[in-house]
């Protein structure tokens, strides 16, 4: 088991390095001189020279990359062009807000999605199964940014129940929760559909196996059969849950933009329009690292539940 964890950790390193190369390359993808992408427009000549030396722009690209990577590993993601603050601080603050949203929407989606998927599997080709399948298809087809706008139209504009924008300015916990409600629902829609689908098909796969027939034949109560099925379908479902949680963290850009929720997505959006390359790079690098580590955790967890998976 620990050998496997170690091996997986080692395998994550080249992936992370590759991701860092992509993030590094983004400055060079941007149209124009990389210096102008990093410095404010009104930077003085000295500043330009200093930056050139500091970043090693006079050196060949591989050297530049290694220098940059060296600083990144130490937690130095550079300074924001817009706020002159260290990028790592901006990212840290926004990451907290994004995490809150990712957790709340995941909890909602996981609970509802698993329930829906199991209901559909155990009521095959009945009305309930049709309904669950329909909700699943809607969930994976709906553009979540549009769903966010629809939620705002219904609950903020028409009914005036919930706030449409931002996180809470004051009003304490209740205010914060009220601001969270709509973005949480909007963000939960896609994983809800995906999880309902996967849960349904995983449970159906198990239900169609012979041992379930044997359990039923020997007269086991429905609830106990249910337990067996869920237990056997769990590894497959857990993988998807882990991946979906990662998507929630990295994929909330559009929903955060709709609700002006001050998370990483909002920060990223802001950085793109201010052409604030250090912030853009910082956000993406941090989110990608989170995502890779999360996938790793999912793999390990899956192996822990079902040791047969570690065989390769």
């Amino acid at each position, binding site marked *: 088991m620990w050998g496997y964890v170690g091996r997986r950790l080692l395998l994550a390193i*080249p*992936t*992370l390095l*590759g*991701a860092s*190369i*992509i*993030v590094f390359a*983004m*400055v060079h*993808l*941007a*149209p124009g001189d990389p210096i102008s992408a990093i410095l404010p427009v009104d930077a003085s000549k000295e500043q330009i020279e200093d930056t050139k030396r500091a970043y090693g722009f006079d050196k060949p690209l591989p050297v530049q990359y290694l220098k940059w990577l060296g600083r990144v590993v130490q937690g130095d993601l550079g300074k924001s062009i817009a706020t002159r603050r260290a990028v790592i601080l901006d990212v840290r603050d926004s990451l907290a807000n994004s995490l809150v949203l990712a957790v709340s929407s995941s909890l909602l989606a996981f609970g509802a999605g698993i329930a829906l998927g199991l209901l559909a599997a155990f009521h095959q080709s009945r009305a309930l199964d049709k309904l669950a399948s329909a909700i699943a*298809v*809607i969930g*994976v*087809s*709906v*553009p979540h*940014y*549009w*769903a966010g*706008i*629809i939620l*705002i*139209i219904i609950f903020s*504009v*028409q009914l005036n129940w919930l706030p449409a924008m931002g996180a809470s300015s004051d009003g304490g916990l209740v205010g914060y929760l009220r601001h969270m409600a709509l973005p949480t629902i909007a963000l939960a829609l896609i994983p809800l559909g995906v999880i309902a689908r996967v849960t349904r098909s995983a449970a159906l796969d198990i239900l169609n196996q012979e041992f379930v027939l044997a359990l039923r034949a020997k007269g086991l109560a429905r609830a106990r059969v249910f337990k067996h099925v869920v237990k056997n379908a769990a590894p497959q479902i857990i993988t998807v849950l882990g991946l979906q949680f*990662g*998507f929630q*963290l*990295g*994929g909330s*850009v*559009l929903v955060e*933009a*709709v609700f002006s929720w001050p998370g990483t997505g909002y920060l*990223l*959006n802001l*950085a*793109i*329009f201010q052409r604030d*390359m250090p912030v*853009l790079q910082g956000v*993406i690098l941090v*989110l*990608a690292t989170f*995502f*890779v580590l999360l*996938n790793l955790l999912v793999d390990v967890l899956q192996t822990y539940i079902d040791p047969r998976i570690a065989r390769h």
Partner: protein
Amino acid sequence: MSVIALPQELSTVAGAPMSYWRTVAWRLSRDRATLVAGALLLVIALSAMLAPWIAPYDPSAGSIRLRLAPVGTPSHVLGTDEQGRDMLSRLLWGGRMTLVAGLTPVVVAFLVGTVLGVMAGYAGGLVNTLVMRTMDIFYAFPAVLLAIAISGALGPGLPNTLISLSIVFIPRVVRVAESATVQVKGLEYVAAAKASGASVWQILRHHLLANILGPVLVFASTQVSLSIILAAGLSFLGLGVTPPSAEWGLMLNTLRQSIYVNAVVPALPGLAIFVTSMAFNLVSDGLRDAMEIRA
């Protein structure tokens, strides 16, 4: 990843044995949801293609007096937008843009991804490791984040949207094509072809491609809906198609400010994205079921 249904495994329908594709067609003809969604897609595609001829107004000509007219206004059936432009005309024209922006990356990814995947799968060894590990790197980013990151770095515009979305979808197709190739490569008839002296090209063309194209195509079709949502999403963020072009995501973005004046009209472009994306999902689901492919 994908299990390929080989023709000999197929059951015979109604007594007489049927060819694989006839069986698929027969199954599709009995799948009502897929048929309805397919018809809907046809209507959407036709109306987008015929937009220049069937749109009642010029999509970029507005009238200040007629801003945000409600749905059902006699001269403007679907109302007008915040600049007084006819919504129906803009939706028709916008569909062209959204479909191009959503479909092109998947087509590119299908072509490039299949070549790379078959190459990696068939060659094995170092080539495989090199291609597949490179693709793994792109899996370090959630799709939305990768698309926005690349578009954000490249700047707005339709060409950049197409580039960034192609980069998002290529690794996915490569993975499916590679695993299908490895699976087919291990089958006995490939070994038999090799033993009988077939060239690499003959094996690739007749034995590998013929058997993996179906599953890879179906996989690609499952990605169209996501691609459309992302393409419109990039425009929604201001990273995709630029004004004054009509594009569903962009229309949603500019109309967003008007939800306090008119709640229905701003919702229409998003509804169009939703219906189109759902139709694509239903059709690809139906295809997958009919072709007995498990993805």
